[in-house]
């Protein structure tokens, strides 16, 4: 099978590059192993949340320029960063991912454990501190679901009270939820979201309305377990409940993250893109300095050929990178990696400190072409978390790196063709 561009990895970086190319009418195939860090995303994206001293950043576009030279942002013209970031937000919007936020000023999202944290873009229905500050009075009710253990109303209340809000703590229950609770491990976000449709959604709305009847809160905060897939569900709930509703993210597999990813994938398919879902790329065929084809575990000897390839396989968690006891490797193409050579310098004893090994990744040239034995592969680009220098953990730049490098590479491929 032959395509103009094949993209390996369908996380935020891979699917964004795929959309960008498909929007230009390109013939694109996207190979997805089936899981993505997006499924744990809490409905917010970071461009740059923290600077090098781990201080919160208020203006991401200004702070991006002060990143160390190894960071992927430094491969962009400083003046173009704003444009790329705005392009990324536009791409999301076209895919139906409606967000608040902008590149000039971070806003504060509220994490599943109730901490306020800088973010670039947040799904419209998901709670932000700024949105709550718009309320006519600083009084909210946080509505937990009986027996649902991955939502933390008391932790969220502690954070909001510090910000001057009065918080009522309420718990909703009804026979639908009781039925779900019969099994000891069914009360998880995805399972609750699954029953939140039709009459059950209406009954849930009525239960929320009833339990909050005596509260004078200006808005309700519910766990993000309503299907965000279409706008209908949350609008429907709001009508029944009869006051402002916000959703706060839950811990673990996260409905807002899944919703974002689903919309992006659907948009790509609607543009005529080809998806190989549940395929793992296991080998590759090179001709001199060019990649000719890749092979997946599901297609036997049927080669997937393309003029250009984009590797968006992610970092260690997604197995785009693999650490052996002594080195960091990229296991499919054996691309060059940059990693601290001395294993004793890989780690910090504080897991949340800067872990030098997390900064390792694929070495690329100035156009994001991956290096192999020191030479750029002419038609293989690397984007997103697998890039060297993209230690997105310590500065919350993961989503920004994914989107900006994906768009930059897609635009370059379009330009060269």
């Amino acid at each position, binding site marked *: 099978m032959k395509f103009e561009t094949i993209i390996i990895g369908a996380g935020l970086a891979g699917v964004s590059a795929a959309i960008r190319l498909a929007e230009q009418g390109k013939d694109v195939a996207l190979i997805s192993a089936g899981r993505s*860090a997006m499924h*744990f*995303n*809490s409905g917010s994206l*970071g461009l740059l*949340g923290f600077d090098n001293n*781990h201080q*919160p950043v208020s203006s991401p576009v200004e702070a991006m320029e002060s990143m160390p030279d190894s960071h992927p942002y430094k491969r962009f013209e400083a003046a173009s960063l704003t444009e790329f970031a705005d392009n990324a937000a536009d791409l999301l919007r076209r895919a139906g991912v409606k967000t608040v936020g902008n590149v000039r000023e971070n806003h504060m999202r509220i*994490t*599943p*454990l*109730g*901490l*306020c*944290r800088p973010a670039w873009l947040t799904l419209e229905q998901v709670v932000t501190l700024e949105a709550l500050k718009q309320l006519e009075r600083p009084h909210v009710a946080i509505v937990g679901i*009986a*027996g649902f*253990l*991955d939502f*933390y109303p*008391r*932790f969220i209340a*502690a954070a909001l009270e510090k910000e001057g809000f009065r918080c009522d703590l309420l718990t909703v229950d009804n026979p639908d939820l*009781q039925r779900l*609770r*019969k099994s*000891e*491990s069914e*009360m998880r976000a995805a399972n609750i979201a699954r029953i939140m449709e039709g009459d059950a959604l209406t009954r849930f709305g009525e239960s929320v309305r009833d339990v909050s009847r005596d509260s004078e809160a200006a808005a309700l905060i519910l766990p993000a377990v309503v299907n965000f897939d279409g706008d209908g569900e949350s609008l429907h709930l709001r009508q029944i409940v009869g006051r402002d509703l916000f959703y706060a*993210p839950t*811990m*673990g597999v996260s409905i807002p993250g899944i919703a974002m990813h689903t919309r992006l994938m659907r948009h790509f398919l609607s543009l005529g893109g080809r998806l190989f879902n549940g395929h793992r790329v296991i080998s590759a065929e090179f001709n001199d300095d060019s990649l000719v084809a890749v092979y997946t575990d599901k297609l036997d000897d049927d080669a997937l050929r393309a003029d250009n390839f984009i590797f968006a396989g992610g*970092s*260690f*968690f997604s*197995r785009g990178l*693999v*650490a*052996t*006891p002594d080195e960091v490797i990229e296991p499919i193409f054996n691309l060059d990696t940059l990693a601290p050579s001395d*294993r*004793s310098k*890989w*780690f910090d*004893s*504080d*897991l*949340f*400190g800067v*872990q030098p*090994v*997390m900064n390792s990744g694929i070495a690329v040239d100035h156009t994001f072409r991956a290096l192999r034995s020191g030479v750029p592969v002419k038609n293989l680009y690397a984007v997103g978390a697998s890039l060297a220098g993209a230690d*997105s*953990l310590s500065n*919350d730049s*993961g989503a920004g790196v994914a989107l900006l490098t994906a768009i930059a590479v897609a635009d370059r491929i379009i330009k060269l063709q």
Partner: protein
Amino acid sequence: MKKLDKHYDVIVIGGGATGAGTARDCALRGLKVLLVERFDFTHGATGRNHGLLHSGARYAVTDRESATECIEENMILRRIAANCVGDTGGFFITLPEDDLAYQQTFIDSCRAAGIEAEAIDPALARQLEPSVNPDLIGAVKVPDGSIDPFRLTMANVLDARLHGADVLTYHEVTDYIRTGNRIEGVLMLDHRNGGEQIQATADVVVNASGIWGHLLAEKAGVSVKMFPAKGALLVFGHRVNNIVINRCRKPANADILVPGDTVCVIGTTSDRVPFESVDRMEVTPEEVDVLLREGIKLAPSLATTRILRAYAGVRPLVASDDDPSGRSISRGIVCLDHAQRDGLEGFVTITGGKLMTYRLMAEWATDTVCRKLGRENAKCVTAERPLPGSEQQSSDSTPVTAGAKASVGRHGTLAANIPASTGSDRALVCECEEVSVGEIEYAIKNLHVDNLLNLRRRTRLGMGTCQGQLCICRAAAILEKHDSCVSRHLGGIRQFVNERWKGMQPVAWGDNLAEAQFTAWLYGSVAGLDVLPPTEEMK
């Protein structure tokens, strides 16, 4: 300074198996007991070993006395601590590189020590334990087993309490109350309440604090010379073997592989370490290498099994009193009445020994205490009397849910006290280890639990293959309802994750590094805990 009203017959220092066992024995003999632990129960060597129910075979050739003690206690623990013991059986295997002639010496020595030891055909050994190195040329079957030191210690604490003992955790003994040449009590620091100082008085103080006994003796003005010997171990992600596998040779590094619950453990190394290092044991790359290399010889599939974490404990080796140079090590139990030895009244040290002989150590210490108090008539019953949870199960209560089954495994007959009437009680917090909301509530109310680490030690929460990915937040929220201190429990989650990281770091490659990155991302970037200051290590 606060002073406890009650005057005790005996204060026992140390919440390991020995201290808890001594408190239980004293309480069963009718003494008024206070048990004091610096941090949490099982914080020291009790919680950092193989979890092996030794048959004694390991010591049969080199140390007959220890071997005999082990097999006697082995048989006693099977009776009194049934719920803490796994009857796995054990093999001592001979590999082509070992001397097969040693096998007969080994069997003869075992039998002389009273340990059943039977040579079996290597083919039968392979059949009974498919994970064993198929190249083995000899195998001897012995009555080894597994023992859960966390459950064992808690059962002793619970029984001590049932018989009137008072128990304080997070209370560190900083000094003694002393009149002339008599110890009359202790001064404690309450780590949980801003370091408040507390006094408690007693006729006798028992120092049962493992390696830290050296320092506690020093504070009392007597010398008990100890040598810290570090032992490193690796935990693997699943139960590779069902029978304990040992090497049939003189005891050496990494020659015991023990199955326990859902995992298995290879160990150990043995290295003298400086006393200053005992509170911060870290496993080195060299130790990981030797444990893996030798472990693979016992069970080759360990080479491809995920290592969950590495940890190290400190054996309290004691210098023999009869060697003025202090260089020779006493192998067995050391019970010192400091009145006889040093002219210091009211102070007893119990040390040396092994987890296997904790009960016998407790018996000796309690005998000494009773003699000093003139209560010789109070007889020891701990060799016969089952521990709470290990009484015979009535057959009419078959647990229905997974969580209920797992909690019976952990708490034995006491699991009947775990709330399970509503769906919310039965909801699983930790899916790997099947810990329910009810079990956590039970632990908070009954088992001295107020942080995640206490909870892990009592319930195995967060010990499974996911290493506490989501369950610890759920558990932290339950803990928070009892003290309404959000910041403490958010900090607790951060510390717990870092504590796991400490164990993963020596083996952080492959899946472990992937998991660590995910954890750092989920708890750091997504949940936002990275901005909390790294607080003091959770104890």
